[in-house]
């Protein structure tokens, strides 16, 4: 069950640039559901089903990808009082972080984000923020934290209804759960390479080297996209619980009609309701997969999430399940 995968994954924090924790969990888990499992120098995790199919001339290689990382923070300074200074990695607005709790990946230290006084809210930048880890002084702080350590927003994932989860920055865990389920379920005859990518938030760096390595005939990126079904939200026309969104356009690319029509056919064949994603503000690994080598036909299947802020992303389990059905139909 997707929900089960998601429940197993949801506590794994995976900051951009230090995705080790999730990577080791995935490598261990994938051993039972894929034929080949390995990691590359950036930390991408690969799981291959039917690896020897590449010899066959009739069947294609399909790559499915989901990113492991979530936007993170890096420590750039520790002061005499033991307070940390950070910079954001990914698309953060400093002002939104005031009062947030952070979890530092290496030592599992928790910190609280504070802001210097006398700064207008509109002007708050990272240089005004500090992180309080309840250290007595620099020396005490350095027992737990070093310059370069990475953190993510801390917060529990909770059940709102039997179908809807809420939690901070869920995109990576939603996508990985869907991909795991597809891997497990699909009785595919063609070669399928599932890639759990790193460093999406800084420009899809993991996806770029992964696509070069896999060199597939088709690549499909699994990610989330923003709902437009809340009060006075104008666009996009995507709603929670109305099925997976087939990517037409996002901030990184336009999907070719041939690829998107193929995904639409799969949805129709599987009897899955779907939506159409035209989201110019949503980023994904799609373009990084697409421009590799001589060009890799690339599409995307997105899970619609309500994103009130980074701290509260809502996801509907039915959308994840339907995405699994759609993608399973594709690889089969």
């Amino acid at each position, binding site marked *: 069950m997707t929900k089960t995968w998601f429940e197993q994954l949801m506590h794994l924090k995976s900051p*951009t*640039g*230090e995705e080790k924790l999730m990577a080791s969990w995935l*490598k261990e888990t994938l051993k039972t559901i894929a034929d080949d*499992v*390995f*990691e*590359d*120098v*950036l930390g*991408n995790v690969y799981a291959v089903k039917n690896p020897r199919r590449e010899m066959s001339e009739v069947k294609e290689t399909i790559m499915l990808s989901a990113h492991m990382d979530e936007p993170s923070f*890096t420590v*750039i*300074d520790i*002061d005499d009082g033991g307070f940390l*200074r950070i*910079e954001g*990695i990914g698309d953060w607005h400093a002002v939104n972080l005031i009062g947030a709790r952070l979890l530092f990946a290496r030592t599992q230290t928790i910190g609280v984000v504070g802001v210097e006084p006398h700064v207008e809210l509109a002007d708050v930048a990272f*240089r005004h923020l500090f992180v309080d880890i309840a250290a007595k002084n620099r020396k005490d702080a350095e027992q737990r934290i070093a*310059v*370069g350590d990475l953190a993510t927003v801390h917060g529990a994932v909770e059940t709102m209804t039997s179908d809807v989860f809420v939690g901070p920055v869920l995109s990576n865990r939603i996508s990985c759960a869907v991909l795991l389920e597809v891997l497990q379920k699909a009785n595919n005859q063609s070669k399928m390479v599932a890639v759990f990518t790193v*460093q999406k938030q*800084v420009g899809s*760096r993991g996806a*770029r*080297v992964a696509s*070069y*390595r896999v060199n597939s005939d088709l690549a499909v990126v699994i990610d989330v996209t923003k709902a437009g079904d809340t009060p006075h939200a104008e666009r996009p026309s995507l709603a929670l619980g109305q099925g997976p969104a087939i990517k037409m356009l996002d901030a990184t690319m336009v999907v070719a009609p041939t690829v998107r029509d193929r995904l639409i056919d799969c949805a129709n064949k599987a009897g899955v309701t779907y939506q159409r994603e035209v989201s110019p503000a949503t980023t994904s690994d799609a373009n990084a997969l697409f421009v590799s080598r001589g060009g890799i036909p690339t599409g995307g299947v997105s899970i619609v999430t309500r994103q009130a802020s980074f701290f509260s992303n809502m996801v509907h389990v039915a959308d994840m399940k339907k995405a699994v059905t759609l993608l399973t139909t594709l690889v089969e």
Partner: protein
Amino acid sequence: MLLKQLTEAVGPSGFETQVRNLIYKEANPFAQNVYTDSLGTLFIEKNMTAKGPKVLLTAHMDEVSFMIVGIEETGLMRFRPIGGVDVRILVSKVVLVGDKGLYGVIGSKAVHLQKKEEREHPLELDQLFIDIGASSKQEAEEHVAVGDIAVFATTYEEIGDECAKSKSFDDRVGCAVLLETLKKDFALPLVFAFTVQEEIGLRGAAPAAYRTNPDLAIVLEGTVCSDGPDTPSHGQATQVDRGPALSVVDAKTIAHRDFLQHISQVAKDAHIPYQWRRTIGGANDVGAIHLTREGIVSAAISIPTRYIHAPSQVISLRDYKHAVDLVEAVLRSIEQGGFVNDKNMV
């Protein structure tokens, strides 16, 4: 002296000929194989048949500079920067123009002739011009053509306490470290790439990495340093005389943790001072190299450079020496199997 020659050579992005020729002359006696690629990157190979991981060491030859884009009837010349320059610093500086290296001064309307409001704003590019002394467009065109380049006319000089100033420590100091390194012998296959076009988007390094496909890459760079007054500790990316800086995160790279850890351990063991580069801004050729092909394990070792991208850049010669020592120590450790990089980890 190497640093003097290197930093005074002219090498705008895409026009690195002088620097390349100088490095070639210096490196050739130690090289097993020398060649250039279609962009102009200079490759020096050593011990290519040796066992052990193939290491690519790079430094970029290009510097921030200017191009002449128009000549006025008066003989004054319009110009635009090649690479990132803070336009506010340009007024009343001296440049060398064209192949002949003619003196030119960057001028603007005299302050007396400016209105009060004008004086409050920094001068924009279209208010500045280069004056080579020509009295007409025709005369200027006898010496300079549109498309000619110009660089700051700063000379190399050792100043203060073991410091030096020049126009182009970013990244001739890296080139110098590489040259010192390639004169030593290591039982490793080594490729030294002196890259082009770093200042306009890390463009030379990717083809260099693609061609050489190394197991490990080390980039030597002159990096931003802001340890002056009015800068809080968390704004000080690096500090002069605290040793070479190691990058954790910059605008184009998140460091390979194990390799970074290894380098810092080597520094500790060898008692070579080092510091962390504490800003996520800026980038160097690692940004292009580490994403080449299936991904390449890479790291940057940087020499803190005050007033980077300005006419007079300042470094500590002790930092320079420590960088040379650190590169040697890292290569010795790799030579001895101290860092193993398995490209496919199960």
